[in-house]
């Protein structure tokens, strides 16, 4: 399609334009590279990072914690969501408790969890789970609530057990919403993992690598390059989950013209 291509060209032009203007502005203003690096210096630092073994180990450490936390979040979020979504009275009754727990920024829990768990990686995973479970849980509840009542009632009148109804009706119809929750959780979990690594000392991972650079060599172009790589990983994570969501549940979004639950 020509319009898609057209937009891609313009998007690329925007990137080049921003880069060029920034490069010219920094170069013309004559600030020292230590105060503010040229964008080209950031690019070359980013290229160096790929060959830096300890950076790659840090990325691996972050992604490992992220993956473990995602598995746990999805299991807890979906199971609890199916339960609460099916028992609407219970769900609306526990809502005030949620309203109190949910806004607590998970990162603030790092010192306490660290004391209780006495293990850096487990602390990171626990805190990321506490943050990432919410999008999965809430979207699952939302999905179960929007199940066609005729379907559940039909199965009930034919004598299916509540568990069978959840398995045959609630779970499949809530699946697109769950997928949206998982996608949102995946991006958020990555951000929280980096935050935890930055806050907790000696946890390893991208956040710790960035903090060490700030405390050590303090090369601003490297620090920005780390953020650039983190951004690219974030895009990759979102792309993988968004593509899977579209592949699996494209029919749902085409049918309802929505994008799943709340973000």
């Amino acid at each position: 399609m020509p319009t898609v291509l057209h937009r891609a060209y313009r998007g690329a032009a925007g990137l080049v334009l921003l880069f060029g203007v920034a490069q010219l502005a920094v170069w013309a203003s004559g600030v020292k590279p230590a105060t503010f690096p040229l964008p080209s210096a950031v690019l070359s630092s980013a290229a160096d990072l790929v060959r830096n073994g300890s950076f790659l180990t840090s990325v691996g450490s972050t992604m490992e914690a992220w993956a473990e936390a995602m598995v746990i979040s999805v299991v807890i979020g979906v199971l609890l969501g199916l339960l609460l979504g099916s028992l609407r009275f219970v769900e609306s009754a526990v809502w005030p408790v949620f309203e109190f727990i949910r806004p607590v920024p998970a990162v603030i829990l790092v010192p306490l969890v660290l004391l209780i768990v006495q293990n850096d990686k487990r602390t990171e995973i626990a805190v990321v789970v506490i943050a990432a479970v919410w999008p999965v849980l809430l979207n699952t509840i939302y999905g179960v609530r929007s199940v066609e009542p005729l379907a559940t009632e039909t199965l009930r009148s034919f004598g299916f057990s509540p568990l069978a109804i959840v398995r045959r009706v609630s779970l499949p119809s809530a699946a697109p919403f769950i997928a949206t929750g998982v996608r949102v959780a995946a991006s958020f979990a990555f951000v929280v993992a980096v935050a935890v690594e930055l806050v907790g000392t000696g946890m390893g991972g991208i956040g710790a690598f960035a903090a060490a650079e700030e405390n050590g060599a303090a090369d601003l172009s490297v620090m920005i390059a780390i953020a650039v790589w983190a951004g690219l990983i974030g895009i990759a994570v979102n792309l993988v989950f968004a593509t899977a969501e579209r592949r699996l549940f494209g029919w749902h979004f085409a049918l309802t013209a929505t994008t799943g639950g709340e973000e």
Partner: protein
Amino acid sequence: MTAAAISADRRVVGVLSNRLTLFVVRLVVLAAAVAGWQLGTESANNPFYLTPSSIVADMYHRWFSGPVSHLWLTSDATGNLLPSIGRMLLGWAIASLVGIALGVAIGRVSLLADLTEPVVHFARAVPPPALAPVFLFAFSIGTPMELATIIFGVIWPVLLNSIEGARHVHPGHLETARAFRIPAATRLARIILPSAAPKICAGLRLSLALALVMMVVSEFVGSVNGIGNEMLEFQTNTDITGMWDVIVLLGLLGMVLNGAFSLVERRVLAWERR
């Protein structure tokens, strides 16, 4: 909402008979949750898990037992809680203004939308904590660093929702305005902004919740005061009561912020529901 969901809602309303029942049930559940927390922590008798009554008592002594002239706030509260909340709200306000202005411009000008799309999508994917060291280096410890971290962290939901909202204004309304030669400023204030308002509000709400997170992160990394900085002190002194105080305080703060936002939103968007 589908017809099925509405009929399901009606049934639930029927079961609950009215809102009052739900309210009472919620209160009871809330009380039961607190009681369970109290009893559970009492019987566990674990130094890490404190009873809510001891947390509330400690919070009172630490923050809310000050002189009346200071609205009962102690010097600890005025020195840490107020700067935190102030920075959070200021950062959120700046991010909101910039995000709405940029978002409406991008949403209305398709050339701008095409040019900025990859840039915006890349920038919002950058985990704000990864930039905290950059801001710390650029601004050194203090309020500018914290504001920069908060603003960068919370601007994206407002920006993206403003773009969405401004892009999908009813074309008929705009054409009518053009036919009547309504000036651009009036078009913006009377047609585009109101039509984008529900989306913008959704973005503002997400950003407000994120602002609390970014406030904590920024104060952990580069602050000499504030709630996050207090948490670091408690960590150094292994003051578990202090840690619980902060956690409960942030839960309450988040609840109050969300509630206040809902009140304002209901007022602002009252015309939309009818």
